[in-house]
């Protein structure tokens, strides 16, 4: 299964980004092969609907699970419809998060944990 982790950089030493849809990169980790790649998040600067667009791309990439700091309601709706597992509340560096994920330390998130526009840095 491929897991997408919102990241503020393109290496395993990067920190998880607290914003699902407006993070600069996703680290895509393959739990079967143990390999990873970093992809640019083209939705990070979207005028509006970043969560919807980001979730669409994640779905199109055949991702099975996402890990992030926070997930907004629109992204949550699309990811859920695509049956992608959602794990939010992650902190720290990507490498440690992958280890924790493999050990089953994260619990699936059942509802969005921030409002729309959380990732726009306006404090709402």
């Amino acid at each position: 299964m491929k897991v997408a982790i919102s990241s503020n950089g393109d290496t395993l030493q990067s920190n998880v980004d607290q914003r699902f849809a407006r993070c600069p990169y996703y680290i895509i980790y393959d739990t079967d092969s143990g390999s990873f790649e970093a992809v640019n998040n083209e939705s990070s600067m979207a005028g509006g609907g970043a969560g919807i667009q980001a979730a669409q791309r994640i779905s199109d990439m055949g991702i099975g699970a996402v890990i992030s700091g926070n997930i907004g309601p629109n992204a949550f709706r699309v990811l859920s419809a695509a049956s992608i597992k959602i794990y939010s509340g992650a902190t720290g560096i990507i490498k440690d998060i992958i280890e924790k994920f493999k050990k089953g330390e994260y619990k699936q998130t059942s509802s969005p944990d921030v409002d729309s526009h959380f990732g726009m840095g306006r404090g709402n």
Partner: protein
Amino acid sequence: MIISIASGKGGTGKTMVAVNLALSLSNIQLVDCDVEEPNCHIFIKPDIENRSTVSIPVPEVNRDKCNGCGRCQEVCAYNAIAVVKKEVIIFSELCHGCGSCSYFCPLKAIDEKNKEIGIIETGRKNNIRFVHGKLNVGMMMSPPVIREVKKCIDKEKTVIIDSPPGTSCPVITTIKDTNFVILVTEPTPFGLNDLSLAVEVVRKLGIPSGVIINRSDLGNEKIDQYCAREGIPILMRIPFDRKIAEIYSNGDTIVRSLPEYKSKFGDLYKKIEKIINDKKTK
């Protein structure tokens, strides 16, 4: 003549200028295009005579015809559609009603239905004709409501339009096709920064403009220096006066409580008229 009142920065005094200018002139139509939080009615207290709704067409998918191809999602410029597992998910609050999705759907599986997004109210108070729009709570698309408000403009009158703050779509929808833009600012770094952004917008739209400095005796001289450098006329200065703040907070108007302001706002109009006439003769 149509005069719009804009600002860049919010809270600089657009509504105060719009309302008091309207009360200082005759044959006026006051148009409040700040449809997200219209305020002019609080001061004018118009009798509303007419109320109508504003709708935009939003897509509705006919599931019997849709094969989940995703074309609607690709063409939506506003990220209002997602298609996952052949299922179309529509976020109608992000829809601008452009119609691309139904136009491009190869199976003609998208119908458009009207979604109410706001209302328009028209009325009058004494000799002032009044129009404003109100965007429904939770809606994000103010330009369609603003366009409907502007359809009520009566060109036989001197039209004063109160604009929303900022420099984005709602402001551009409001000020375009007006004859003059009054930019209200304050002598603070934020005031200057947002004024300079607003100046860029009015220049791009080719609309003549001038500046009113509100709370003009606070802050620094940088607005004056900027206007001199850029060749933008300063039309009026309104001092930081506790009396004005109290009048405004009570929902009253400056020209009613401090009658000397009536001629000041009258002079403001004359200056604008002169700028427009000078442009015409050039």
